[in-house]
């Protein structure tokens, strides 16, 4: 395997959790809800997934547990912001703190345990093709799930009636309610979907990317995924491209450190986060007049009675 090939494979691996979490959040924000608790939900997904997988010995059980853990935490968020119409920013930040704490509690007994990483799907014949073989046919199942998720969300949002309803609600919830659309129910389902995706992204971290649990292992990826949604202007396909860019920055940073290019390692570790900030600045400079932001994003909905 050439070095380039190896680097590209690690870029894909680094991009996958970002993409999965960002796609979930993208759907949530398209419905008009801003859930800043992505980091917390990912952490809980990572620790619960790891715990369930070690106890049961089954990766599938771990993944399912992670998805449900993410959904459970997002249900708390939905209760606060949809049920009680609490402030979404404050609730999301609280969710992150709660999630990080909970994940430490759940994972405490498993610190130091190692699992076998999730195997790669290899297609006999195809995977051994020169150059493209490993890049197209040599990944773990999460990568393909992330791809399917991208296609699925893009199709759902653009082509289905429920997708249209969801976008309308995010665009203007007052109008949507007046037309008889179910604002709160749709948002609840969107938030739960976002939680499930965040949980799945967390499971990827602790079951495939680095197959062990350590507190704080999400390392800000939830925040990067949040920025990614903005970077992608709320479009699934652009999220795929953005995830590869951010994943690339993460990997580049590792290789730059290994090559000791004379910059302090802390500065290099900060690279993905600096890339996030630069991307957001460029976005707002270049498209200051854009209105891709869902019109009702972050605003609580309370119908008159």
């Amino acid at each position, binding site marked *: 395997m050439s070095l380039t090939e190896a680097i590209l494979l690690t870029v894909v691996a680094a991009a996958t959790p970002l993409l999965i979490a960002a796609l979930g959040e993208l759907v949530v924000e398209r419905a008009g809800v801003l859930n800043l608790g992505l980091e917390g939900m990912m952490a809980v997904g990572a620790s619960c997934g790891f715990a369930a997988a070690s106890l049961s010995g089954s990766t599938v059980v771990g993944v399912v547990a992670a998805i449900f853990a993410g959904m459970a935490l997002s249900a708390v968020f939905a209760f606060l912001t949809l049920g009680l119409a609490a402030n979404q920013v404050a609730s999301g930040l609280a969710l992150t703190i709660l999630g990080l704490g909970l994940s430490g509690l759940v994972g405490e007994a498993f610190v130091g345990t190692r699992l076998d990483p999730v195997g790669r799907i290899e297609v006999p014949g195809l995977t051994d093709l020169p150059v493209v073989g490993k890049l197209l046919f040599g990944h773990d199942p999460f990568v393909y799930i992330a791809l399917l998720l991208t296609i699925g969300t893009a199709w759902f949002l653009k082509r289905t*009636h429920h997708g*249209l*309803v969801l*976008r*309308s609600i995010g*665009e*203007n919830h*007052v*109008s*949507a*309610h*007046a*037309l*008889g*659309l*179910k604002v709160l129910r749709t948002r609840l389902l969107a938030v739960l979907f976002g939680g499930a995706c965040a949980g799945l992204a967390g499971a990827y971290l602790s079951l495939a990317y680095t197959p062990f649990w350590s507190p704080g292992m999400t390392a800000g990826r939830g925040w990067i995924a949040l920025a990614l949604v903005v970077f992608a202007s709320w479009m699934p396909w652009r999220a795929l491209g953005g995830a590869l860019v951010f994943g690339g920055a993460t990997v580049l940073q590792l290789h730059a450190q290994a090559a000791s290019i004379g910059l302090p390692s802390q500065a290099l570790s900060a690279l993905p986060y600096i890339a996030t900030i630069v991307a957001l600045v460029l976005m707002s400079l270049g498209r200051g*007049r*854009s*209105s*891709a932001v869902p*019109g009702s994003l972050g605003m609580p909905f309370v*119908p*008159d*009675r």
Partner: protein
Amino acid sequence: MAASDAPLVAMLGIVKRFGALTANDRVDLQIRRGEIHALLGENGAGKSTLVKILDGLLQPDAGEILWEGRPVVLPDPEAAARLGIGMVFQHFSLFDNLTVAENIAVALPGEGGRSEVARRIEEVGRSYGLTLDPSRPVWTLSAGERQRIEIVRALLRKPKLLILDEPTSVLTPQEADGLFTTLERLAADGCGLLYITHRLEEVKRLCSRATIMRGGKVVAACDPRGETVAGLASLMVGADVHEVRPAPAHAVGKIRLELNNLHLPAPDLHGTPLTGAMLQVQGGEVLGIAGVAGNGQSELFAALSGESLAPRPEDVSIDGAPVGREGIDARRLRNAAFLPEERLGHAAAPRFTLSENVVLSRHATGGLVRRGVLKTGEAQRIAREVIRVFDVRKGGEDPPAATLSGGNLQKFVVGREILREPGVLVVNQPTWGVDAGAAATIRQALVDLAARGSAVVVISQDLDELFAISDRIAVLHAGRLSAARSARTATREEIGILMAGGHATDAA
């Protein structure tokens, strides 16, 4: 009674309270098939509350709704839509970033694919003269086109009753004529129509029955074709409406406010760029700026007030001084005053008290700040003065702005600017959503200010208002300002053509 003899819908003894306010007090309303029924009343009379109950958006505290003779409960708009009640909203309930077809398809679950929806849009469009391009995003459309979407959407749900809330408030006179033709066709097809408005000429022309509300109660039901406009107006207001006294003859002075070929790019994707705006306003005159909403009114206001800076200093002049690059305070210090359209959120901070709101627009000019410390006593004195002179009704000594009614708050913010005796005053929509009494007070104050030698610019979508108070009228269409013409000689038709983007004799 057989269901077919019963009125289409009957609302009996409807009561709706919001806290201490009774918005609907034992209201009765009956609508038959195939009639255009007017619901008349001033702002705040309870019309919108009543139709929101009929559309399932609000729940009545008491009373009963009979649909085709059977009692029904309408817990949400979906239930109303299932019965066949459709609504065309006053403030459009559209989704700006979606296309026309998407805006319509979202209200039609399980009705086939997009091409099917597009086909039905064209079908309804053809039969009712409502042409629409299904693939256009809504934000690119004019107010009239947006309203067409609402109507087509309502029609595709095959309504038996169609409610229209102030549908002509955003239309040019010619667009309104087109709408009336559509409504008459619908009524002829057997649809019941409830037409909410405070424009009496329309009611006389279009409606066969009228229910008139005042202060939350039904005060009369009549055939409007047998009534005079003045008679309907006094039923609606409960007293004779007093007309604005035209200002006594006064000399028109030197030019106090001038726009010199102002070009301003749109502030955002959905905004309107201003192109080559020329304007000269003399001391002693009221200059009205007509136009359908969204043709650059807020952009023009921002350019005049200094919220948007012009590219060149000489683009905007106040009393001969080039101020195009000066901000709002600098222009205020040149004795100009500005009053934006939205009273809650732009002209006044909702949760601030009235005296704090005085400080917000007078901090630079009113001597209200000494070494960075507010002189609250002085601010309160000014607030009391405004309240006294403009007869602002309020609860409490110095209440938050949001607790005042629309008309009273508007009188307060107008008074706040006028009592400064500004040499130049620019107001946007001075009487929007204000009751007739407050509107008359405000219009009189604007006319009187001009009579004292100030240059007054009134941007308004209410043509009647502009004809009542302006000396000259210019028209804004798609960011272009027409030449001003005398309000005494211009006709409504002439202005209407300009509002629709047509060219009158000497239009720019």
